[in-house]
């Protein structure tokens, strides 16, 4: 299925109503040549099903891992990815851009 921003947020709502733990990741800031624009969403459930994207596929894995923690403890987090940030994350954007992603649980 082709996922648009519209059905990504609708899916988040449906998954939550179906009783699953759900997190929404949103691209909130970009620098340089980021692959997905600010406002793009990725939704993740507790079983690591996901829909949408926050990059061209480079950092989704790390966001999903982080989202599982957010689903577990309910605390929203801001995560930064990019070549400039080598301290916290091993994954980077191969395109050389930098992005901030806000991950929050649907309560």
């Amino acid at each position, binding site marked *: 299925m*082709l996922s*648009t*921003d*519209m059905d990504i*947020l*609708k899916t*988040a*709502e449906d998954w*939550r*109503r179906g009783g699953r733990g759900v997190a*929404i990741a*949103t691209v*909130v*800031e970009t620098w340089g040549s980021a692959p997905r624009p*600010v*406002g793009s969403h990725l939704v993740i459930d507790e079983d690591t099903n996901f829909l949408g994207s926050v990059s061209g596929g480079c950092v989704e894995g790390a966001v999903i891992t982080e989202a599982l923690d957010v689903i577990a403890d309910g*605390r*929203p987090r*801001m995560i930064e990815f990019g070549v400039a940030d080598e301290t916290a994350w091993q994954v980077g954007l191969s395109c050389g851009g930098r992005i901030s992603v*806000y991950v*929050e*649980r*649907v*309560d």
Partner: protein
Amino acid sequence: MRLDLLSRLNAERAARRAAILVTDVESGEQRLVLEMEVGSDPLAQELQGGLRQGKSGFVERDGRRYFLTVQAPPVKVIVIGAVHISQALAPMAKGLDLDVTIVDPRTAFATPERFPDVPVVAEWPDVVLPDLGIDRYTALVALTHDPKIDDPALTAALRSDSFYIGALGSRKTHERRVQRLTESGFTEADIARIHAPIGLDIGAVSPAEIALSIMAEIVASLRKERRRST
């Protein structure tokens, strides 16, 4: 995000109304501001800016940063003419997340069999367009070649703030169209809003290629602020 906020955000989108989710990323606090409430919000100026540009992003007020998730209504494409090109165009528009509706008074053309996945209205444009509503999130594409059908639709679109108006036909056909629209009172500037000949110049030949060139032109109009050249 609270589930009720998420539901309301989805409901607003389904109802084709703009809405903005305001997130204080430090505290995680959130609120949803509906289009009609924007003016009375403490962040009114910032929210209006967000709505105008249709772009999500951070704003700052009194040393606090708020992320605005700006949700504009889905873009609508009204196609006049249930013709061969429209059959190719409808699935492309759907794939691009656009709401497409086909209008054609000729009942032999406007059948659900020919357009299985999109709404088809077998009615005259001047009858149905007031109900469909042409707003600034709407593109209108006239493809019948028949002035009796196309002209009333173009007239309605020119009186609206539709972001894209396109009409099929050769330069000669368009010259005659310009003449008719001028006679009915439209100015040169009004008529210049019509993209004709329709579609980006990609040398399109087949109905699917013409549909692609039209869709590309619609996207180019929608995203004109981002284009590298104009």
